[in-house]
């Protein structure tokens, strides 16, 4: 192991976990309010980033960056509302499988639509956060008498900050606003919510609109770090396990799940060729970032089937 790199990889991983947490949060939000697991979230991410690019790029409208982001947010809200109204409301009361397939199909549809609209070429996303001049932090301890310096990419740090700010804003929104309250109430029990006069269809709409916003922000954060192409839609695959780690319905769980996955993905980069199991194994472990979330997920499912924060249900017959 490269113990000297441990803090570096741990912190980088954790920072990478920020956007993952944000993405997971978007999925949890939908699930909480309507028990729909949104497999199309990745495509919403992609569309958010693509529209931002198109509004801002010279090939597109060439608007100032922040205007472009705002317009993209508006598009994403609209998209969220449309999805809810057109594809998921007709599915009310359908079995789980149908709803899973609906969002999968929706994802495919949106993917095709994105290609049709924007083509397949990769895009250079506008730089929002500086990508040079990394922060160098000297840690207050040493390893083998070498000072440990952690190099943090600026865009990584700021992406993390933005993601966390979004998480906090959302949490405050849920905790302290009336809309937040009605969303939390709806999430608990649709029938009871209706009985106290909450318009649950409106709540679903709002949930999807917010999910659209979160997706667009997530898309922009990821695209700004490393360019934009169709593969952005599969970034969410790392966030799915984060959602389940946290327990599907838990907002703090989703955030923690995202951070755990980021951290773990960072740490698997550590083993070097002198790792006790030999270079092939070390190489395989370093290559395992894509499956780490799923391995963690399997472990958690075996130990705690309802996730770390999930609600256990009593089955009745």
């Amino acid at each position: 192991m490269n113990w000297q790199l441990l803090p570096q990889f741990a912190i980088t991983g954790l920072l990478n976990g920020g956007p993952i947490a944000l993405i997971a949060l978007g999925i949890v939000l939908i699930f909480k309010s309507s028990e729909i697991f949104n497999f199309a979230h990745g495509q919403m991410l992609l569309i958010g980033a693509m529209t931002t690019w198109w509004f801002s790029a010279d090939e597109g409208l060439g608007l100032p960056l922040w205007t472009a982001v705002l317009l993209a947010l508006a598009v994403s809200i609209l998209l969220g509302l449309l999805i809810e109204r057109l594809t998921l409301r007709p599915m009310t009361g359908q079995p789980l499988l149908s709803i899973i397939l609906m969002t999968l199909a929706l994802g495919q549809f949106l993917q095709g639509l994105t290609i049709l609209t924007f083509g397949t070429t990769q895009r250079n996303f506008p730089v929002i956060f500086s990508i040079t001049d990394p922060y160098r932090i000297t840690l207050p301890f040493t390893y083998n008498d070498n000072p440990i310096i952690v190099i943090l990419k600026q865009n990584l740090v700021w992406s993390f900050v933005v993601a966390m700010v979004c998480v906090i804003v959302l949490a405050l929104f849920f905790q302290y606003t009336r809309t937040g309250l009605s969303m939390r109430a709806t999430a608990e029990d649709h029938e009871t919510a209706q009985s106290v006069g909450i318009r649950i269809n409106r709540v679903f709409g709002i949930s999807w609109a917010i999910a659209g916003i979160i997706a667009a922000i997530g898309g922009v954060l990821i695209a700004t770090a490393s360019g934009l192409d169709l593969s952005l839609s599969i970034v969410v695959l790392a966030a799915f396990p984060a959602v389940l780690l946290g327990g599907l319905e838990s907002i703090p769980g989703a955030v923690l799940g995202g951070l755990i996955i980021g951290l773990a993905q960072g740490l698997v980069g550590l083993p070097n060729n002198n790792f006790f199991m030999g270079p092939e194994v070390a190489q395989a472990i370093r290559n395992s970032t894509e499956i780490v979330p799923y391995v963690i997920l399997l472990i958690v499912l075996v130990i705690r089937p309802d996730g770390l924060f999930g609600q256990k249900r009593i089955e009745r017959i």
Partner: protein
Amino acid sequence: MLSVNNIEVVYSDVILVLRGISLAVEKGQIVSLLGANGAGKTTTLKSISGLLLREDGAVTRGGIEFDGQRLDKLAAEEITRLGIVQVLEGRRLFQHLTTEENLLTGALIHPNNRAEIRRTLEQVYTYFPALPQLRNRTAGYLSGGEQQMVAIGRALMSRPRLMLLDEPSLGLAPLLVQSIFEMVRQYNEETGVSILLVEQNANVALQVADYAYVMENGRIVLDGSAEQLAQNADIKEFYLGLTSVGERKSYRDVKHYKRRKRWLG
């Protein structure tokens, strides 16, 4: 105020649950709906409050009117906004919200007037003096009686004109049941809000009600003022099982008769 006119309710397009129910609630009245399990009491409440729709049920005949407005095609949340609030059977609270948040959800149908909401909240706390100490407790961890109080309190928060109470006594100790019913009566007397009360526990129900209906198999079989019904000897017997008054063959006899028929035929 509320009149249910000969309604028929069908679930999933096939299962007929209510076979022509008529009842009326006048302003300021407490009306009680009695009956055994599966008689259709809850279905009646849900067809008034609109919650039937989400269970694939529908009013197929007859109509429900509230102050002259037809209810049977309205969504549940709109009916609540008209001033009819249902307290669901089984104390359905938002388990992970605190007591006070649960109460506040009741006020979501009103415009965001903090002072007004605060005042209503204080009012609810005066009806249920036990609740202020519990305001920051997670609702799911409250005891059954406390949960029932929160559920009713939440309904009060919406300042209803008609409250539908579904089996508030369910699973509660007799003493608690008494105190909850006393509060209900007090609330009714002080505010003049009408209450439609569904109960299996005829005794307590008849103590607070002005008028009562008895249901069986999706039909109203008996109605009258609470005093009248309380005097009715059949009621007591009804709750110990004699379904219809008068001469009834034992089920064992029925059996032999039918079986003979089958063997012969």
